[in-house]
């Protein structure tokens, strides 16, 4: 083949293939806005911290559900494991947060690697049951082995300052939020890079049509195992962050509602474009905060209503409507010309 001529077509093609790789302004503003919020409302730093951690947890689910199309109703298994690993490490004297975070998320990733082969066969329903079952088993293991986990009492832990300088926890809420912010941003940037790579493209292909992906030479099983282990590591990191910044772990970390909530957050924010988890987590947690201070018993009613509307009306339709409107504003007569 001769050297490619830089025709109009090849310029368009190269631009199309790389279109999502560059960081765009709205994205940069998004991250700056979070950072600004941490400094602007230090009184709500704990809430922001909770959102960031839930956002990381939902990002982790997006890697398998949104990118790859693998469903899970037991993602709390990795979240809880990461949290307990961080807590146990700290009670064993490893009080450095960053070291604890890395080790905990590696432990969660190892569990992901070990259980991923269970997800290769069967349909979505099988996967929902298998993932749920693993989370149940882990929760029960934590309950029974109270010598290690504190059982129903949970564990209280003490952490050293981050990087030896920034104390986190009850007296350092803003530092805690900043710590979670930095971890979330770094892991997000990695996920973003990965999603735009050939590997990420092959995950999309598996989601879209696993049969054809295999027929193009993609080792679909290996790719699913790899992304599942990575997602488990992300979920473990989120759990470790929660344990370290709240300095307490308890058995409810493995609860079914954790797995369900994170799925809700991702669906509310939109799966498959990586920001959906963070946006969904923010909507979910802020709504819960606002509504539950008004009607403490009934906040789930409104979350439920939001979910029903989103699923029935369809976010795509919202999005498409908005795009059509924008297009019409930009080119008022375009549709008339076409007619």
């Amino acid at each position, binding site marked *: 083949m001769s050297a490619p001529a830089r025709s109009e077509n090849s310029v368009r*093609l190269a631009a199309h*293939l790389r279109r999502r790789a560059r960081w765009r302004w709205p994205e940069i503003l998004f991250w700056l806005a979070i950072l600004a919020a941490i400094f602007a409302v230090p009184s709500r730093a704990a809430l922001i911290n909770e959102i960031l951690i839930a956002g990381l947890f939902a990002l982790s689910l997006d890697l398998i559900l949104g990118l790859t199309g693998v469903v899970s109703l037991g993602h709390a298994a990795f979240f809880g494991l990461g949290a307990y690993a961080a807590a146990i490490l700290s009670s064993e004297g490893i009080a450095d947060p960053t070291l604890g975070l890395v080790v905990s998320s590696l432990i969660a990733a190892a569990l992901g690697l070990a259980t991923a082969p269970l997800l290769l066969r069967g349909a979505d329903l099988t996967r929902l049951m298998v993932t749920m079952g693993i989370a149940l088993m882990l929760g029960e293991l934590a309950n029974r082995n109270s010598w290690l986990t504190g059982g129903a009492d949970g564990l209280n832990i003490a952490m050293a300052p981050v990087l030896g300088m920034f104390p986190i926890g009850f007296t350092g809420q803003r530092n805690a939020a900043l710590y979670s912010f930095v971890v979330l941003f770094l892991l997000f940037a990695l996920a973003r890079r990965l999603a735009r790579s050939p*590997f990420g493209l092959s995950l999309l292909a598996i989601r879209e*049509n696993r049969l054809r992906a295999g027929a193009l030479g993609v080792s679909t099983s290996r790719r699913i195992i790899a992304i599942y282990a990575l997602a488990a590591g992300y979920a473990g990191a989120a759990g470790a962050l929660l344990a370290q910044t709240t300095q307490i772990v308890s058995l409810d970390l493995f609860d079914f509602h954790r797995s369900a909530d994170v799925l809700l957050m991702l669906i509310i924010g939109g799966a498959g474009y990586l920001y959906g988890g963070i946006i969904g987590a923010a909507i979910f947690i802020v709504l819960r905060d606002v509504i539950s201070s008004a009607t403490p018993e009934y906040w789930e009613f409104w979350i439920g209503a939001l979910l029903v509307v989103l699923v029935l009306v369809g976010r795509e339709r919202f999005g498409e409507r908005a795009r059509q409107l924008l297009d019409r504003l930009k080119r008022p007569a375009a549709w008339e010309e076409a007619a």
Partner: protein
Amino acid sequence: MSAPALEARGLVRRFGGLIATDNVSFSVEPGARQALIGPNGAGKTTLINLLTGVVRPSAGSVFLEGEDVTALSPSRRVRRGLSRTFQINQLFPDLSPAESLGLAISERNGSGGDFWRVAGGKANIVAEVEELLGRFGLEDAMDQPTRTLAYGKQRLLEIALGLASRPRVLLLDEPAAGVPEEERRDILAALAALPAEVAILLIEHDMDLVFNFAKRISVLVAGRLLCEGEPAAIAADERVRAVYLGEDARG
């Protein structure tokens, strides 16, 4: 060098008591233009699945350029040079044709697992995507989601994806199935323009297409290979006629 591009030796596949493939041996020479025909229920689909590795044979083996690939998974066989298209479109609805082709090319050259490089960042891959888009007349639609493409364009993308794996043997499963008359010519032209060095095995119902395209025809009936030969010989064969006219095959 003298080995056939693709060879089946004594392939048998039983589903319970049913014998879907009954001791089929045949070969496809390098660069061949061969067709596999047979009435409904003759076992064409099972045979394709055996060749591509989707279904394991009860007995017999499959050779690709002289090497036994019977134990290899479908994706391994693709990387060894055996690729296929599907009778019912198997595309990626939300990816564009350019992305789908880029994916196929990176998988072929072994960079499909690369998670650090930006997709579309390699000039040689982009150039190859462009060449394939041009060959199949897909330039205009290259950046549209595949689900929005006209059906005929989707059929062309099916073939383009099969070719993007740069196969030695390409199995085309009813490439013109369901294509409206006015778009058929594009498919026929694309088939005629396939690279000469790629061996093609065409599985087809449409006799016009078969007799236009194939230099050699294999006829499958009730899981067995009934006969093989040049189009003229097959057209004149009494047994083949009998099968297609629904008469007693022993006639």
